[in-house]
């Protein structure tokens, strides 16, 4: 299973320079840790322990505090995501219109469970709470593309589009 296996950290010097710059800019703001972690995730795509260590050292706070915050919020990821993140809305409006079945179908077709990434690193499957496009329910997003008014039959076509 591709999920959460230890992947060697491949951060570049440019990424680290960018991170240190972000930390220097925000360090003195009140409650700066969250915005810094959000920027760090933008830079690296995820928040491996190496990145958390830099943040803890530079901000002069404990690693325990950084790790505590990272693991509390669902948008922070300790592991790299696939090239395409397929996110199925399991908010109420989508759920009553059958998004649970769409999620199950994706899981079946991709052969992964929620939160996992396919072995080829192509797709990550997650569920999300309401993105607010309830008028189009049920919806899913693939990175920034939104697909609405779906039925189970649409699933394979959508995946095929990105398999390329």
């Amino acid at each position, binding site marked *: 299973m591709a999920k959460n296996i230890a992947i060697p950290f491949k951060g570049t010097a440019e990424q680290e320079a960018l991170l240190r710059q972000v930390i220097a800019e925000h360090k003195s703001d*009140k*409650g*700066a*840790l*969250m*915005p810094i*972690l*959000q920027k760090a995730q933008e830079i690296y795509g995820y928040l491996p322990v190496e990145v958390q260590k830099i943040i803890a050292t530079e901000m002069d706070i404990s690693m325990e*505090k950084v790790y*505590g*915050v990272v693991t*509390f*919020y*669902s*948008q*922070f990821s300790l592991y790299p995501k696939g090239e395409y993140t397929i996110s199925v809305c*399991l*908010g*109420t*409006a*989508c*759920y*009553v*219109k059958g998004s649970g079945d769409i999620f199950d179908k994706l899981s079946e077709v991709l052969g992964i469970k929620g939160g996992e990434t396919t072995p080829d690193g192509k797709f990550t499957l997650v569920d*999300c*709470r*309401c*993105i*607010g*496009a*309830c*008028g*189009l*329910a049920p*919806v899913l997003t693939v990175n920034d593309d*939104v697909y*609405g008014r779906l039925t189970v039959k649409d699933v394979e076509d959508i995946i095929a589009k990105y398999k390329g």
Partner: protein
Amino acid sequence: MYRSHILVCGGTGCTSSGSQAIIDKFNYELAKNGLENEVQVVKTGCHGLCALGPIAIVYPEGTFYSMIKVDDVEEIVTEHLLKGRVVTRLVYDETVKDDKITSIADTDFYRKQKRIALRNCGVINPEDIEEYIGTRGYEALGKVLTEMTPDEVVDTILASGLRGRGGAGFPTGRKWQLAKDLVKDGGQKYVCCNADEGDPGAFMDRSVLEGDPHALIEAMAIAGYAIGASQGYVYVRAEYPIAVRRLEIAIEQAHEYGLLGKDIFGTGFDFDIGIRLGAGAFVCGEETALMTSIEGNRGEPRPRPPFPAVKGLFERPTVLNNVETYANIPQIILNGVEWFTSMGTEKSKGTKVFALGGKINNTGLVEVPMGTTLREIVEEIGGGIPNGKKFKAAQTGGPSGGCISAENLDVPIDYDNLLAIGSMMGSGGLIVMDEDNCMVDIAKFFLQFTVDESCGKCTPCRIGTRRLLELLDKVTKGQATLEDIDKIEALCYYIKDNSLCGLGQTAPNPVLSTLRYFRDEYIAHVVDKKCPAGVCKDLLSFTIDKDKCIGCGMCAKQCPAGAISKTDYIAPGKKLPALTIDTAKCVKCGACIEKCKFGAIEKK
């Protein structure tokens, strides 16, 4: 001057269905026809009728085009804008009566609405401060700063009877008064805005941020003046990228115009606003958790007292209101208390925005006076249930709320009435369910949500909700006993009474309200081992009616489990032998039902 304006919705719903490409195409077609100086395309916020997106309205006529595609744009430009002939086939059919185009305001969807919080959504370009100023924007802030004392502002909001639109309905004026008066040490105070709209199915706050962000900025500045704060924070979900972007633009423009920053209107009043993004934790919509999160910590709630009015953000007195609440403030200041209190019920004044979703024709955002009945919202404004199905329940208040059954459709909706019938206002998500939805499954769905989102700080919520979910799971699998139902009820009350914050205290509500109104469904799962709505897979069995089956074999081809085979029986008048399903092999996927054109397959 432009002779026509095309308002295209740029809210999340319509953007998701491709409205940006439509805007680009309009601009291209207008330029191609040399109309770019005569017709202006305006990207607005949400019009509310998300079900019909993408939407474009052509003014001055007010022609309402719905569900348009990029390919339709050329026709609208060459026919309507060049030749003055409305493209009738693309017009929202509710606005066509006897071959004449009627105003959108007269349709069932809009007629009963009263738009205060949403008044600018879908009307102005939210990325242009001058359009906001053109609709009396920032006039209320000017009035407050130059003509009113902080006490007068607080008294006005108190007298208006405005209550928090985020859920619990605490009087807004009272919050402001406490934050103003309880601590008078001259130190920093804060004004916060809760835009962490986490209830699934609720998107009114996002709509205000996307459609009218300056209304929020103006209201927060008014609150700052009233309580003596010079710094505000908006805590907004990271899942709302369009809203965040528009708010950033609005704050920047307000700075340029001297409406935020130092010495606003030359009155010596300083106020600024910072944005903090959430990171996907539902509990951060709880006020103390939200502030803990802004401080850069795990977003865990803390015990109250001390209340935020005494010790809030960074341990300083803080006012925290939600977006929709703030959106009412400038209007109350401008139009007066009498105007505001003329709408609503005795204890709930003004209007409430609801996000209609689920099994309803007109999904979208509606704003109605408090006291409107659920029947009016569902049947008239919402246009009823699709496919002729029967209304079963409406869910309000998200994971903290409950289900309202058909017997309560005529109860006037306000804070107190909803509590009395076992639900709550919540932030205003209103999800309609029909006869195909299983209420036990819905209760389980919400419990799954709270189990995932419980922060884990207190035991009743962390472990209690998990045990409750396990019990519900037993019910949906037909393994529960009647004693389990009693256990479920007892556990619900225990969690309610003993949890630390609102999340745990309200988490059992979906279970309790479905038990109250749909107990027979629970009993059917437990005693008869049946799911009356046909949702809970473990309790379903698929059968073929041998007299309806013509033996075409389409179902057998679809079956992934090879569970369908031929029998020896040929029904009278049919040529081929009927098929049958081996229930031991059946995986209950339902593929066969979808394929059968003869309605011969039943699930029970």
